[in-house]
């Protein structure tokens, strides 16, 4: 390799690093990074991804092996050369998960200037770089803003601008999107695409397989080793290995595999546009594609790519939007029309609830504006909406952490506006806030979980019984005596959730419970929530993912503090609502979006599928020449 002409940005040979106590973070890793390439590192939590990132950006020196970065031999045979590290670090940039910790000043542009100031760059040059980088990340309008008042995605973009202003040769992004919403992640991906034009070598560590598709190379890590390394399509073709590592393959790959299992003639691919084009082609071969649309298929791939990978909003016909409110009213009416549920008290009922944080200031905007809805006992509710749409406030109202300015909140039929009533409701509605693991405090996991039941005044043996039950449910019974701070990130979250479950709530409300978890953690939590729901607990979940909202049986879409639409997933995620949902910045679940794109390209009606299984079944039916009935009922 060393004879190749392409200059290397980083070269790791037989690098081993352990944190002591038998935890080997990197185990004999060798890796070469070509200048200007974009490498994506995937792997479960604890696989050593972050450690690899820290070694590449010069913040950690390995225990054994050779490292040279940006032309400096910083570590030879496990012996670090600190002078070399110091000069190498000036050409290395790092952006990591938590945007709050990376911003060091109280004004956005000062923060971008912080790095160049440390490098001793002249004042005029700093001004140039600050303007350039803020523009690159589309934050130029916030140059004088207070970073603590920005959204997570905006903060993360400021952090990237701050790293780029140092003009690094290598930029390591360690899960930059892990704590962000869909829109925030999209913004980061847009910035990364621009980076490739600047010639910066990018190392992107992520949990999201879709993000890996745009990389030049993908490395999969497991137990401190790089197990797979190659182009995205090479890596994603290693089916069994990926599955055994618990990694989620990109949507296009999953769909292609399912279609091939159903004996449709499509190639194995991880590229969305290739798959869509070949589906259309195979339908065309059988004469199933409508003639007038066939000419459009040539133009399809590029639009499809923009949509499914980047999710970039497309201009939509406004007529569709106009037809919308009617459809949503219908949905709401249907949800309320079921007679048997009217008789018993709803788990949660909101009656014309309004709320604003700064009521006293004139000209304020209401955070929650006249919301009325019923959540029946045993339902599984998904609340979706953009950042700032009032989701979290709505959840706080449901949990009686705020009281409405106007209107009523009834929980199990009890009005929560009286103090005595609220005390009765203690423990009835469990609230799992964002990043609940940050609230762990006790010496052992068991003690932490017991905190809630103890406060309810239960007898010691009952507390212990509930505690054990809750820990069993989340699969942490074997860790009950360890310190919560010693658990892995995913386990910490489960321990925090167990603390709520131990209070035996009728309703559990979770604010973005999946944020920051790896695919395996997400899968595990999804299973736990399903079994809690099956045992009769009402589950209300705030989510950014339309795909996970399809698994609810009641979807509430919020916009600017009001309910935009509400109903079953099939009612809300309908082709008619596509334009409105896009306009709200939410979009529709991928299988539905694909079916609509394919229909537009001439494929016959696919029955509005909401899951990958439904979509592949529909494609098979349609391919066989039968017509596809519309999907109905609950999503499996």
């Amino acid at each position, binding site marked *: 390799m060393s004879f190749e002409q392409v200059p290397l940005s980083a070269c790791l040979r037989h690098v081993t690093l352990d944190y002591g106590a038998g935890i080997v973070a990197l185990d004999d890793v060798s890796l070469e990074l070509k200048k200007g390439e974009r490498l994506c590192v995937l792997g479960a939590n604890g696989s050593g991804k972050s450690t690899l990132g820290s070694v590449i*950006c010069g*913040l950690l020196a390995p225990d054994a092996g050779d490292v040279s970065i940006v032309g400096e031999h910083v570590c030879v045979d496990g012996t670090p050369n600190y002078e070399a590290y110091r000069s190498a*670090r*000036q050409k*290395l*940039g*790092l952006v*990591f998960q*938590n945007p*709050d*910790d*990376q*911003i*060091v*000043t*109280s*004004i956005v542009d*000062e923060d971008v*200037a*912080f790095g*160049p*100031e*440390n*490098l*001793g*760059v*002249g*004042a005029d040059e*700093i*001004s140039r770089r600050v303007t350039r980088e803020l523009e690159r990340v589309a934050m130029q309008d916030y140059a*004088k803003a*207070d*970073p*603590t008042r920005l959204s997570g995605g905006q903060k993360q973009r400021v952090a990237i601008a*701050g*790293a780029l202003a*140092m003009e690094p040769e290598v930029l390591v992004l360690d899960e930059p999107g892990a704590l962000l919403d869909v829109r925030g992640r999209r913004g980061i991906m847009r910035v990364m695409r621009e980076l490739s034009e600047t010639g910066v070598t990018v190392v992107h560590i992520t949990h999201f397989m879709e993000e890996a598709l745009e990389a030049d190379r993908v490395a999969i890590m497991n137990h401190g080793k790089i197990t797979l390394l190659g182009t995205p399509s090479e890596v994603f073709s290693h089916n069994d290995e990926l599955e055994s590592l618990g990694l989620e393959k990109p949507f296009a790959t999953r769909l292609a595999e399912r279609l091939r299992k159903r004996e449709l003639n499509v190639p194995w691919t991880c590229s969305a546009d290739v798959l869509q084009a070949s589906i259309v082609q195979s339908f065309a071969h059988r004469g199933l594609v409508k003639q007038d649309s066939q000419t459009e298929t040539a133009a399809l791939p590029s639009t499809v790519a923009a949509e499914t990978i980047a999710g970039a909003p497309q201009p939509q016909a406004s007529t569709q939007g106009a037809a919308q409110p009617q459809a949503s009213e219908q949905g709401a009416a249907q949800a309320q029309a079921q007679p048997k549920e009217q008789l018993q008290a709803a788990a949660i009922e909101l009656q014309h609830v309004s709320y604003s944080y700064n009521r006293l200031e004139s000209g304020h905007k209401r955070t929650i504006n006249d919301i009325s809805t019923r959540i029946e006992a045993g339902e599984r509710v998904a609340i979706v909406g953009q950042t700032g749409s009032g989701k979290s406030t709505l959840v*706080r109202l449901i*949990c009686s*952490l705020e009281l409405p300015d106007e209107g009523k909140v009834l929980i199990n039929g009890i009005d929560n506006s009286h*103090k005595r009533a609220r005390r009765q409701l*203690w*423990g009835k*509605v*469990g*609230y799992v*806030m*964002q990043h*609940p693991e*940050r*609230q*762990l*405090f*006790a010496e052992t996991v068991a003690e932490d979980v017991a*905190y*809630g039941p103890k*406060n*309810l005044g239960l007898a010691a043996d009952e507390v212990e019984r509930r505690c054990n039950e809750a820990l069993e449910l989340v699969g942490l019974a074997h860790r009950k005596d360890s310190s919560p701070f010693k658990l892995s990130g995913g386990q910490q979250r489960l321990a925090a959730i167990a603390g*709520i479950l131990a*209070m035996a709530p009728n309703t559990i409300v979770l604010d973005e419970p999946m944020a920051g978890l790896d695919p395996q953690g997400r899968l595990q939590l999804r299973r736990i929530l399903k079994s809690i729901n099956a045992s009769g607990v009402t589950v209300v979940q705030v989510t950014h993912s339309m795909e996970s909202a399809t698994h609810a049986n009641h979807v509430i879409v919020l916009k600017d503090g009001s309910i935009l639409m509400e109903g079953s997933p099939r009612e809300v995620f309908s082709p008619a609502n596509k334009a409105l949902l896009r306009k709200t910045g939410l979009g529709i679940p991928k299988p539905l979006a694909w079916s609509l794109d394919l229909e537009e390209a001439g494929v016959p009606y696919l029955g509005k599928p909401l899951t990958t299984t439904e979509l592949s079944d529909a494609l098979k039916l349609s391919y066989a020449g039968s017509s596809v009935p519309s999907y109905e009922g609950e999503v499996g």
Partner: protein
Amino acid sequence: MAFRITLGQYYPSNSLIHRLDPRAKIIAALLVMIAVFFINNPVQLLLGWIGAIVTTLLCRVPVSKVLTAVKPVIYMLCILAFFNLLLIREGNVLVSFGPITITEGGAWGAILYSLRLVIGVVAAALLLLSTTPTEITDACDAGLAPLARFGFPAHELAMIFSLMLRFIPTIADEASAIIDAQTSRGGALAAGSFVHRVKSIGPVVISLLASSLRHASGLSRALDARCYEGGATRSPWHPLKWELKDTLAVICVAAFVGVLIALRFVIPFWLY
């Protein structure tokens, strides 16, 4: 959100005051804040208020912003005024009702002491509204620099101060999130018996400490990644430049303060 402190609420603008050297502004604000304690007659008070209003106008910040900054102090001043009203017993008696006696001196004191302090608070508010936290840090850094020769960690202290300003809102938001979480688990800081409340503090403090440590380790990683190595090699983006206008500004304020203090002795006693 309730914990957010209105500290370092910079309001971007390009006024004359905004463009002054932060050191000049700090000196001027300190002078005014000391001078208000010399106010003890209506003429001084009037002059002081005129000064405060003129500076606010020069600063070109919305009056509402200044009022927001002053608001929290007003409650304190009201309590102060109340005690002054009851405790100062000078001059003619205005009202006497049982143990409560309100005198002319008490009434005057209640008004004077509150209103004169508002001038000082406005000066501080204008300083923070027109100066970025970074500028304040740089000014402190420069002001303390002579002490660095004796081994005093001037630059490091300034940096810590600036990081503190940056992290106060973050930690405050987290504290209120943790309190919410504990409240929904029945550990109510805001309700229940006294013993119950005191017991609830522990979990909050431990979680907050753990989260501060997480921030600290993240922050140290960020500072390393951005090559922060203390003051030696840094080239400030906006180096402090003391210009003629800064000298003039300090002279103006000093003259104003001089007149203000002098009036205490010049105004005949009978006026007060």
